[in-house]
């Protein structure tokens, strides 16, 4: 069990080294240096980039500044995805640090959501938690909580406080022992080359005959392409939080320990690197 606690801590404190560079076409008074930052995997872009914004605003005139937005190699980064997911999905096997370009103009309305203030992020975060609990416990646990508990979850995430967050979150990870697990596992499988943003389906952690489902079972069920057959070379990597768990890892355990703070298992399926 000590391992489980370590797993939780490692998942929470995961960081990605990032280099923020101002878009060259932005009008600046003088040359802007890049800004380096260790971004937390479990947070959201617009929540942790205040310093970045301040750094670049130093060299810009006020009238040239509109809403900040980020892109990587031409792809606008959706702020409502966790940072870890964005990295795993887009830049998993590239060289570190991760280079993100900062824009202040020409906000891509079609690709990104606006994020005017932190309460928008809070609303998105809380709705994800509620959706996850609906799948896990038919929303009973989240509805039994008081508003201050919800607030504590958000504050824990915002201020990077592991204990504060998990004091409440552990209630969401409980399940009645006769069930053996959650009702359904909240997960999303993200694909790089697909029109769909993600795959999300109802999937039980325990089969009707008592057999524990694993990650492999899930993929077989939902996206069998991801699993290579024995003779083929591995074509896809299944990445969660920057690691590739074994396919026989139980899904219930994964949901309890490797979920993001919003209680979802965000799984990235990326093409395997060809050496």
């Amino acid at each position, binding site marked *: 069990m000590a*391992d489980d606690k*370590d*797993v939780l801590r*490692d*998942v929470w*404190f*995961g*960081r*990605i*080294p990032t280099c923020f560079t101002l878009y060259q076409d932005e009008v600046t008074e003088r040359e802007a*240096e890049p*800004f*380096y*930052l*260790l971004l937390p995997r479990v947070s959201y872009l617009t929540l942790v980039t205040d310093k970045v914004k301040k*750094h670049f605003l*130093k060299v810009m005139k006020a009238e040239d500044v509109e809403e900040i937005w980020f892109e990587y190699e031409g792809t606008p980064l959706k702020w409502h995805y966790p940072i870890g997911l964005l990295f795993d999905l887009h830049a998993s096997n590239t060289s*570190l*640090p991760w280079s993100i370009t900062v824009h202040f103009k020409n906000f891509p309305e079609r690709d990104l959501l606006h994020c005017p203030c932190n309460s928008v992020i809070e609303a998105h975060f809380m709705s994800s938690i509620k959706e996850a609990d609906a799948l896990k416990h038919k929303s009973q646990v989240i509805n039994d909580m008081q508003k201050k508990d919800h607030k504590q979850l958000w504050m824990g995430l915002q201020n990077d406080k592991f204990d504060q967050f998990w004091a409440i979150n552990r209630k969401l990870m409980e399940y009645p022992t006769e069930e053996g697990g959650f009702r359904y596992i909240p997960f999303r499988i993200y694909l790089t080359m697909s029109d769909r943003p993600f795959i999300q389906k109802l999937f039980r952690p325990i089969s009707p005959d008592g057999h524990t489902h694993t990650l492999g079972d899930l993929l077989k069920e939902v996206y069998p392409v991801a699993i290579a057959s024995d003779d083929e070379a591995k074509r896809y990597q299944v990445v969660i*939080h*920057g*690691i*590739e*768990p*074994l396919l*026989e*890892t*139980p899904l219930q*355990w994964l949901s309890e*320990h*490797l979920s993001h703070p919003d209680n979802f298992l965000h799984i990235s399926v990326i093409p395997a690197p060809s050496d």
Partner: protein
Amino acid sequence: MAERRLECSWKRHVVEQLKQRDRVQRHAFEEIIHQYNRLLEKSDLQTVLSERYQSDKYDLQNRHDSSPGLDLSRNDSLQQEMAQMRIRHQEELTELHKKRGELAQSVIELNHQIQQKDKEIQSNEAKMEEYQRQIAELEGECRELRGKLQDLEQANQTLKDEYDALQITFGALEEKLRRTTDDNQELVSRWMAEKSQEANKLNAENEKDCKRRQAKLQKELAEAAKEPLPLDPDDDIEVLAEDSGKGTGETSPNRPLSRTPSKRVSGQSPQSSLLGSISNIFGRRPGNSYGSSPECTETPSGVCADVRVPATALHVFEAHDGEVNAVRFSPGSRLLATGGMDRRVKLWEVVSGRCEPKGALTGSNAGITSIEFDSAGSYLLAASNDFASRIWTVDDFRLRHTLTGHSGKVLAARFLLDNARIVSGSYDRTLKLWDLRSKVCMKTVFAGSSCNDIVCTEQCVMSGHFDKRVRFWDIRAESIVRELELMGRVTSLDLNHDRTELLTCSRDDLVKIIDLRSNAVRQTFSAQGFKCGADWTRVTFSPDGSYVAGGSADGALYIWNVLTGKLERTLDKNHSSAINSVSWSPSGAYVVSVEKGCKAVLWSDM
């Protein structure tokens, strides 16, 4: 087992992968990024500073652009300017240091204030605790007091209930008492009625008895008149004590008739001596019919004579060998009786302006205090200082009864109007009522004071007392009906002929007439020289009630007119000492007064 190993393997794989990831992604870059950010800050600061310097420098350079040859001097001036700038910066620095010191000072002060406030807060909290403790105590006391109050209220309530219950029982008891009192009163009244009935019956019986005896007497007299009776000079003198004789039932006048014949009768024929013997027995009154009891021709009812105020003394004579205390005319105006300290009652006859001695009644052992004739004039009652009253028959001067029983000298004795009872008043402060037939004292009333004189009406006995009071007694009830208070000791009482007015004489030298119907003093008589001489000085009405005569201590006889209230006459020539008693003859013609000095004076207006 296999499962656990299996479980451990994937878990271990996950743990290892996470550690690997962190090594690669985080630890490698953490330090670098941190240092990079610090350098960035520093460079920003340097940029700001250098911008400031650059602007100054460019200004200087612009000014010295025209003379490129003076490099050295430019260098010197540049150096000077640099030095000046350095100085300025040093000054700014010192100023900033000073400001910092001031700020630190203010910080210290604020800290100090905060500490003070904290102390205040602590003390306030301590006070609050104190107050709360007090409040708790007071609440405790309050609860206790309320508890006590409740107890007291309960006790009060129980007391009230008890009180109400007691009130109810009291009411019931009062009701009971009222009812029993009513019953009692009813019983008492019934008893009184029965008693009065009994008394009536007794009276009726007494009267019947009396009539029977009278009838018997008449019969016997008639019988006796038929036979000659020898008279025996030796008479048995019956001295009867008051307690004996209740059973005899015979009246004394019968005894001498039957038992003691007198031997004075000379030998005459029975028939012819009958009248003589009768006249011997009954007194020298030939022509009078027999029978003492029915003889009532001389009862002075109504005004029988014209009253004349006497003016002169007709006869002055020695009556007794000592003080003369009492004088009385007989109802027929012929006889006069006087009583004195020589223990005798002397009888006189008024004949032609003179009083001739007729006889003396003896038997008393001490001085005579008062004399009365009965209404027929046949018996004489005298009260004496030897504590007894005596009755003689007038005609034969024989003592008939002695009534003893008083423990003091008897000062007055009177017949009641029915002549069968006698009331006597004595120095022993009692009045006694005697019945003549049984010769027994029927009643004794304690008057409270020595009784000086008595008069009687049909219902009432009036007595005058030493304590200045006149007491009115009801004869049947033994109680005082009324009391009248005078100014001095009452010495004498007299009634007028129709018994409506009472004459009193008292030691304050006033003679008063009291109306008996209204019980008020109607008139008062006094005179300059009139002084009551003794406690037994007697005054009298005239027979018609129009004059009042009384004797004074200086020997003068005063006569007042009742109608005018004024002194009519003073007759002071003939007495040499205090006048004790006065009597007016029923005919109105004569007045006799007797004095201390043994003399008696007969007055008339001729």
